[in-house]
């Protein structure tokens, strides 16, 4: 199944648009209300990171199938400054924006799978998956 | 498929069966005979070897094998009975063919081994997958059953709800517990939620972490969470592990927890009749008479 679709993130309102779109996909896949909120919140955080640090980028949605399971895959791609020390941003409480510092570790807790690729000066790609329970 | 070899095996099936049964009994009688009667063991062995021969004869047809496997699984025979049986068949058959061969060079040897593998391997694969299939379905059924008894929420009175937790708490269950807890608190409009961990055998750092998270989430939706049923050994482990539970109220028993739940909701239990007074009244009335 290939349902990939992407939403560009350029302005603040796109954050709301992206999370609503993701929530609809999650709902149609059969996620419960709590997981829908988890997915939507994770998208919101990812989109906000793009908006804050890279100014523009995109969020892509995909339905993935594993052995006996199905899930939603969300990929956040930007061509921003990249992240110098990934292990540092994965620490709870680390922040550069003056937010709450929930950031990436928070997103990791909201979702099941988490993967990050980043190159300084080139950009960042974060992939998260939530499996249907 | 080497039909010559197949003919040798099928043509001498009686002899092979005899050898096989000897082999199987030698190997396994001490293991299974405790729970299984000798007659049943004998008849099952015969059935098993028949099924093997049928399968060798009509390559591909697995109907008999399926029936046999189902019955064996239902009776609860161990999987290694089947795998050991197949190993014995491989040994016996290979030996038998080799003993009958006039020429014994490397080529012949290889040919024999390959043919026997070709008969044995599909059967082994089939039996193992039947077994693991039945295990998987059992496991998933048990998972569902466990989820069903996972986290009941009992509204004991207006504004007070109890969730008794029983058994080990893993991450998956913790999520379910948290969801049930919060949904229930809202649904029953519960100002106080009591989590009773009397039935949780071990509270380690992870379990405590899940409980703390649940308690904090309960506070966010606007209720108060009281942790009750803390046994002495649980209190010891919690302190020894350095887990900080000071932020939310804990009580040793559900009774005490319920008492503070009543206080929080501005209520109290009153005796409708004062038994002490009644006694005095009775004695008074006797005196008067």
């Amino acid at each position, binding site marked *: 199944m290939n349902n990939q679709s992407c939403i560009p993130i350029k302005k*603040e*309102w796109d*954050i*709301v648009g992206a*999370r*609503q779109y993701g*929530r609809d996909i999650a709902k149609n896949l059969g996620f419960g*209300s*709590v997981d*829908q*909120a*988890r997915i*939507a*919140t994770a998208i*919101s*955080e990812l989109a*906000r990171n793009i908006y804050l640090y890279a100014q523009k980028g995109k969020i892509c949605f995909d339905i993935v199938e594993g052995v006996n399971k199905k899930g939603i895959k969300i990929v956040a791609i930007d061509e921003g400054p990249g992240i110098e020390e990934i292990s540092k941003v994965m620490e*709870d*409480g680390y922040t550069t924006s003056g*937010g*709450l*510092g*929930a*950031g990436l*570790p*928070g*997103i990791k*807790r*909201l979702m099941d799978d988490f993967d990050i690729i980043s190159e300084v000066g080139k950009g960042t790609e974060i992939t998260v998956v939530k499996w249907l329970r | 498929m080497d039909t010559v070899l197949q003919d040798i095996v099928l043509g001498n099936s009686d002899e092979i069966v005899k050898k096989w049964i000897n082999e199987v009994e030698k190997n396994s009688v001490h293991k299974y005979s405790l729970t299984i009667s000798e007659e049943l063991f004998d008849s099952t062995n015969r059935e098993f070897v028949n099924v093997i021969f049928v399968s060798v004869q009509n390559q591909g047809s697995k109907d008999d094998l399926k029936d046999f496997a189902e019955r064996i699984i239902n009776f609860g025979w161990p999987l290694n009975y089947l795998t050991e049986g197949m190993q014995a068949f491989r040994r016996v058959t290979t030996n038998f063919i080799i003993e009958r061969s006039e020429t014994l060079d490397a080529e012949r040897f290889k040919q024999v081994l390959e043919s026997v593998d070709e008969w044995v391997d599909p059967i082994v694969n089939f039996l193992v997958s039947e077994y693991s299939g039945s295990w998987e379905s059992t496991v998933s059924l048990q998972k569902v059953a466990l989820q069903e008894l996972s986290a009941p929420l009992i509204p004991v009175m207006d504004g007070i709800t109890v969730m008794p937790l029983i058994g080990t708490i893993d991450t998956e269950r913790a999520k379910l517990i*948290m*969801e049930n807890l*919060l*949904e229930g*608190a*809202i649904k029953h*409009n*519960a*100002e106080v939620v009591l989590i009773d961990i009397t039935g949780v055998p071990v509270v380690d750092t992870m379990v405590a972490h899940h409980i703390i*998270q649940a308690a*904090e*989430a*309960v*506070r*966010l*939706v*606007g*209720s108060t969470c009281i942790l009750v049923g803390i046994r002495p050994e649980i209190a010891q482990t919690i302190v020894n592990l350095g887990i900080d539970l000071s932020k939310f109220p804990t009580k040793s028993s559900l009774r005490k927890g319920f008492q503070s739940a009543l206080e929080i909701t501005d209520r109290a239990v009153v005796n409708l009749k004062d038994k002490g007074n009644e006694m005095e009244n009775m004695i008074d009335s006797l005196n008067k008479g």
Partner: protein
Amino acid sequence: MMRIPILKLHNYLLISIQIDLDDQTAIQFQEDLLKKIHETGATGVVIDLTSVDIVDSYIAKVLGDVVSMSDLMGAKVVLTGIQPAVAITLIDLGIHLKDVPTSLDLEKGLIKLRQELEE
């Protein structure tokens, strides 16, 4: 951008947020509320979140800030009606809103405010 209406009732201000909050609206709301506290001299504020189904870290920060700011201006704030899904995602994000009073619904929130203000 939308403006969130703020209602006055005696010494209290009541706010029910019924839209998906974006950053601009949240900041605007923060300003409006503080201004309103200043104008009315309100001593208590109830912010009802029953209809809010997503609170991310930024919105949570704005809400947490507004509680501390109102406190500085002499108005106690209670958040009410936080949905289970929202509470769980906040906990997952590691946001505990420790100093923020909460209640199940608007009514209980008002009772809580009255009790706290009487003390």
